Structure formats: structure tokens, C-alpha cells
């Protein structure tokens, strides 16, 4: 879609839903586990909403929620309570969702989001949060995809699993920034151990509110009606849906000249296959949730000591760690982000390598290039990687000491990766020594050891030798290549020097 009018301000707020990593559901003892293969086996009278059943709040869910709230710099409430949000939907067996209305457990907070992906001059934007609250998830509806009007099927395994809802202020200014916000949110939640944020399994979902401020032909700034896009469940989806919606709102604005028949907030869905948003609820059915305090649950006093205990127990958060890698380990902002964005395990791995090899910069290069490439190729997590931090540190230490050239080190790295894990247990140092000696990778620092090789190569390539002597500098390349092939541990600079010396003599 084209953009018929500008300038424009894009105004986006996200409501992010994060499934909490509890053992059991939020108000009953059923397992909190993704299990679409066996529908309706993780239910009980409580989460089925059977007549007479009553909810009791899961302490762990509240604890994880508070941890998240603290990490987002929110204010944890001294008293919080539960409210019923009432609407009819087949995946909501009580016809109300237990949620939090006017006393959420966490108020305010913020998250910083880097403005661009690279460069050391990156600026961050502070995205303020309105609130964070806890609620129960609904079950799942499986619609008939054939459009033949068959019944929809309902699976309540997910009904009653704990959800954190993080509501941002409308501080986001672009689709890309919204995506980065969501990515940073995911990273933070995974870091905290609050959620696995597995998007395929729906543990991280979001609704986006978006409108634009556009200027009409008379130069008057007009805001387009707010649109809420529901149930976005991938980073790409969020970005694409918002991009689409920006275009759609601009188009609509151009068509109506900023005069809207209906300025009510509209709810739209996202059709990922067609790449379009589509209108959902009409305004005549504007939601009236009839919130009121759930009389089956009692308010919760959150003791200051508990909050402090949880605050003290927080790990170093991704943003702080990223900054530390830049400030203390002198990494580029880009490298620091690549490492941190991969999650806590990779960052731990990197820091262990950096510390043990004594060269953070080199460690960063290897981790962000060699290690990540291999992980991607193998579809592995760092925890399953064949070379542990000690192994990589040992390799890098040998480069630093001059025992291996970078090229040979790569060969050692590859060889170590291909090691049979069932093989005999030897120390990684011993294994590295073995690979070096098997493949003759030791650096040939002594030029005396090169002499016979150089002589043999010159003898085999009289034409190239003559060309060089005749002033054709490039001819030496072929000779260097051949020497290098035979002397694996040789340093190309020494070979070149030795060759020149020999040819000039």
C-alpha cells in the first residue's frame, strides 16, 4: 500500500500475554502443560467451571508475576485482588475470566528498547508500562477449517493456566520497534525463568493497539480511530500486521480525508496467510465486561519482605548485562546484543570463554560467528554444544599464545565438533594436542623447518619462480599456496618472507 499522506506519527501500545512456568494451573492443581495431542485430560471441577467448584490462588504464579513486575521496574502493590471479567465464549467455561481490574499486582514500570540493530551509537527508547496483571488463560477452540459449517471443538487443557498481561503505554512508534519491544520482552521473561515464551505453543501472545496521527489537506493533525489487532503470536506477525495496519489506516485516511463516520475503537484480526487485518467485532456489541471483585477469592497482601526477597533474588537482567559487556569487556554494542539476545545460556557460555581465554574480543568473535553458525546449522542449543566453554577457551588460548594460527584453530574447532561423544574420555587439552599432532597443525615458527619445503616448491615451479624474479610480484601467490598446503601449521607471513628471501638470493 502506498502512503498518500505524511508526515505521520505512529502510535502503538502492546498488551503482551506471557504464560507463566508454574507446575500447576493458576487456581487448581491441574498440570500447566502444553498438550494438544490429548485434549481435555488436564481438567478438574475448578478449571472446567463445574457448578460448585472454587478457585484458590497459586502462590508460585504470584511469585513469578512479582519477579517479572520487579524486573520491569514496576511498583508492586501492597494489596491486590481478583476480579471477574465476564463474557461468553466456549473456551471460557465459567463465562468469566478471573483477572485483575482496578488493583493489579503491579503498576507502572518500563522497558528500554534499542532503536536500531547495529552500530555502537545505538540509542534506546524507554517504553513505559501502564500495568502488569495476572489472569487465567482460556481453553482452545478448534474451528472447522473446511468452511463446511461443522461444529467447533473445545479443548480445556489450557483453561486456567496462569497468564501475565503486560500493558504498555502507547509509546511505540513503529512496527519494527514494536517487534524489538516484544523480542526484548521475551528475552527478559526467559531470562527470569518466568516463562518459556514458546511462541509456537502460544506462551507469548500479544494484542496491539495502533492508530496514526496524520495531517489532512488543511494542515490539521487528526488521529485515526484506534484499532486493536488481536492474538498476534509471532514476531513477524506483529511487525507485518502493524505495517499492514499503518498502510490501511493511511489509505482510509486518504479516502475519507480524516472525517470518520465512526471513531469508536475497532477490533481487527490478523490473517497471516493473506497478510491482512480484518474487522471483527461490531460496535453494537461493544464489550461490557461487568467487572466486579471475585467473591470466591480473597485479597492478597503482598508483604514488603517478600517483595525484597524476590528483588534480591533477581538475576542480572539482559539490558544490564548487555551494557556490562560493552563497558567492562569492551565489546561492540552489536556483538553484545547478538550474545545477549541469544539468551542466558549463551551469554553464560560467552562469559566463561572470555574469562578463561583472557580475550573477550576474540571470544566474542568466535561465539557470535563460529559457535552461532554451528548451532544454527545443527539446530542445537548451547547446552547441547559439543565444545563446552573450557574447550573453546583452550583453543582460543592457543591462538593467543601463538601455538595455533586462526586457520588451524578453526580446523581444531571443527575436528572437536565432529568428535564421537561416545569415544574415550580425555581432557579437552589432550584432545586438542592430539588433533594438532594428527593433522600437523602446529605453528611452524622456525623458518629453518620451512627451508627444505621452500626449496622443493621452487624446484617444482620453475616458471613461477622465474616470473617472480622477473618482477611479476603476483607469481609468488602460487608458491605461497603450495608451501602452505604442505606445511599446515605455517604462518603465511613467514612463508612469504622466507620465499622472497630465497628467491632473491
Amino acid at each position, binding site marked *: 500500500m502506498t502512503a498518500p499522506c505524511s508526515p505521520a506519527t505512529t502510535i502503538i501500545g502492546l498488551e503482551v500475554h506471557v504464560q507463566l512456568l508454574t507446575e500447576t494451573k493458576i487456581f487448581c492443581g491441574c498440570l500447566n502443560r502444553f498438550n494438544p495431542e490429548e485434549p*481435555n485430560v488436564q481438567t478438574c471441577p475448578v478449571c472446567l467451571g463445574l457448578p460448585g467448584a472454587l478457585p484458590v490462588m497459586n502462590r508460585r504464579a504470584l511469585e513469578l508475576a512479582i519477579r517479572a513486575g520487579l524486573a520491569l521496574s514496576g511498583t508492586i502493590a501492597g494489596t491486590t485482588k481478583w476480579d471477574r471479567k465476564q463474557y461468553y465464549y466456549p473456551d471460557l467455561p465459567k463465562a468469566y475470566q478471573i483477572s485483575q481490574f482496578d488493583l493489579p499486582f503491579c503498576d507502572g514500570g518500563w522497558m528500554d528498547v534499542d532503536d536500531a540493530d547495529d552500530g555502537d551509537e545505538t540509542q534506546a527508547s524507554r517504553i513505559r508500562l501502564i500495568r502488569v496483571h495476572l489472569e487465567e488463560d482460556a481453553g482452545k477452540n478448534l474451528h472447522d477449517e473446511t468452511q463446511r459449517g461443522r461444529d467447533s471443538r473445545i479443548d480445556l487443557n489450557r483453561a486456567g493456566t496462569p497468564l501475565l498481561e503486560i500493558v504498555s503505554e502507547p509509546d511505540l512508534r513503529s512496527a519494527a520497534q514494536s517487534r524489538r519491544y516484544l523480542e526484548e520482552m521475551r528475552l527478559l521473561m526467559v531470562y527470569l525463568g518466568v516463562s518459556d515464551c514458546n511462541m509456537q505453543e502460544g506462551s507469548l501472545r500479544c494484542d496491539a493497539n495502533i492508530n496514526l496521527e496524520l495531517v489532512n489537506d488543511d494542515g490539521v493533525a487528526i488521529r485515526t480511530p484506534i484499532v486493536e489487532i488481536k492474538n498476534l503470536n509471532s514476531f513477524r506477525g506483529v511487525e507485518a500486521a502493524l505495517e499492514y495496519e499503518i498502510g490501511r489506516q493511511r489509505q482510509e485516511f486518504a479516502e475519507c480525508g480524516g472525517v470518520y463516520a465512526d471513531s469508536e475503537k475497532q477490533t481487527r484480526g490478523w490473517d497471516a496467510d493473506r497478510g491482512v487485518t480484518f474487522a471483527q467485532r461490531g460496535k453494537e*456489541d461493544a464489550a461490557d465486561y461487568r467487572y466486579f471483585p471475585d*467473591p470466591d477469592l480473597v485479597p492478597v497482601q503482598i508483604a514488603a519482605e517478600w517483595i525484597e526477597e524476590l528483588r534480591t533474588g533477581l538475576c542480572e537482567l539482559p539490558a544490564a548485562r548487555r551494557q556490562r559487556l560493552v563497558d567492562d569487556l569492551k565489546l561492540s554494542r552489536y556483538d553484545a546484543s547478538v550474545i545477549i539476545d541469544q539468551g542466558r545460556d549463551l551469554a553464560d557460555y560467552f562469559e566463561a570463554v572470555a574469562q578463561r581465554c583472557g580475550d573477550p574480543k576474540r571470544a566474542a568473535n568466535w561465539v557470535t560467528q563460529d559457535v552461532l553458525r554451528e548451532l544454527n546449522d545443527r539446530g542445537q542449543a548451547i547446552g547441547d554444544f559439543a565444545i563446552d566453554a573450557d574447550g573453546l577457551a583452550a583453543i582460543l588460548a592457543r591462538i593467543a599464545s601463538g601455538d595455533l594460527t586462526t586457520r588451524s584453530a578453526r580446523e581444531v574447532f571443527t575436528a572437536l565438533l565432529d568428535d564421537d561423544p561416545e569415544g574415550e574420555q580425555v581432557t579437552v587439552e589432550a584432545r586438542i594436542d592430539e588433533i594438532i599432532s594428527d593433522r600437523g597443525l602446529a605453528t611452524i615458527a622456525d623458518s629453518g623447518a620451512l627451508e627444505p619445503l621452500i626449496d622443493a616448491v621452487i624446484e617444482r615451479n620453475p616458471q613461477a619462480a622465474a616470473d617472480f624474479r622477473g618482477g611479476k610480484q603476483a607469481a609468488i601467490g602460487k608458491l605461497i599456496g603450495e608451501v602452505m598446503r604442505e606445511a599446515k601449521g605455517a604462518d603465511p607471513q613467514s612463508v612469504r618472507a622466507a620465499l622472497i628471501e630465497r628467491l632473491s638470493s
Partner: protein
Amino acid sequence: MSDSSQAEPLVPELTRDVVLKVARLARLHLAESEVESFTSQLTQILDYVGVLDEADTEGVEPVAGAMGLNSVLREDLPTTSLSRDDALSGAPHHDGSYFLVPPILDPRAE
């Protein structure tokens, strides 16, 4: 209400249209005779509860739920779930694995 400074009545007349709107919100199909009787009966009852206007509730905390109880939390420990057959046993329509409902054509539309 007496603890409100607003002069105009907060609660509008309970018209037939309001009754129909509330019935829709409550997902109740009402027969024509019910619409009529509810309109008059609810009007009468709401009239009567208007007596609360006379209660001075300035600065009074509303009661919410159980008196004096708070912070009742359970540990995150699993309990036995129902078998699928038990879970589905009361459903008017199911296929042995899922609850079945008339097709939901427009997700979240209603």
C-alpha cells in the same frame, strides 16, 4: 446517591429497550410476556432499592468477599485431574475428545 454530588439521577428509566439489551448481555432469550413482566417488575425492584440513596456511605469501604480473610494461597502442587470421560460426561454435545459447539465463524466476534 448521597455520596455523589451529581444531581441528575444516575440510573435511567428501565425501558423495554434496556431490558432487551440486558437480556442480550446476559444471553437470555425472553418470551414477549417476560419482556413485559420483567420491565415492570425490575422497575419496581430498582425503585425500591433506591432507598439506598438515603444511606450515607461517605468514606465507607465497600465489603468485598469474605470478612477479614486475606492472602489465602495454595502451593504449586499438582492434584489428580479428571479423566477425559468424566470431564466430558456432562456435556450436551461432545465427540469423545472435545466439547462441541455450533461453528464459531468469526473468531472472538462474539
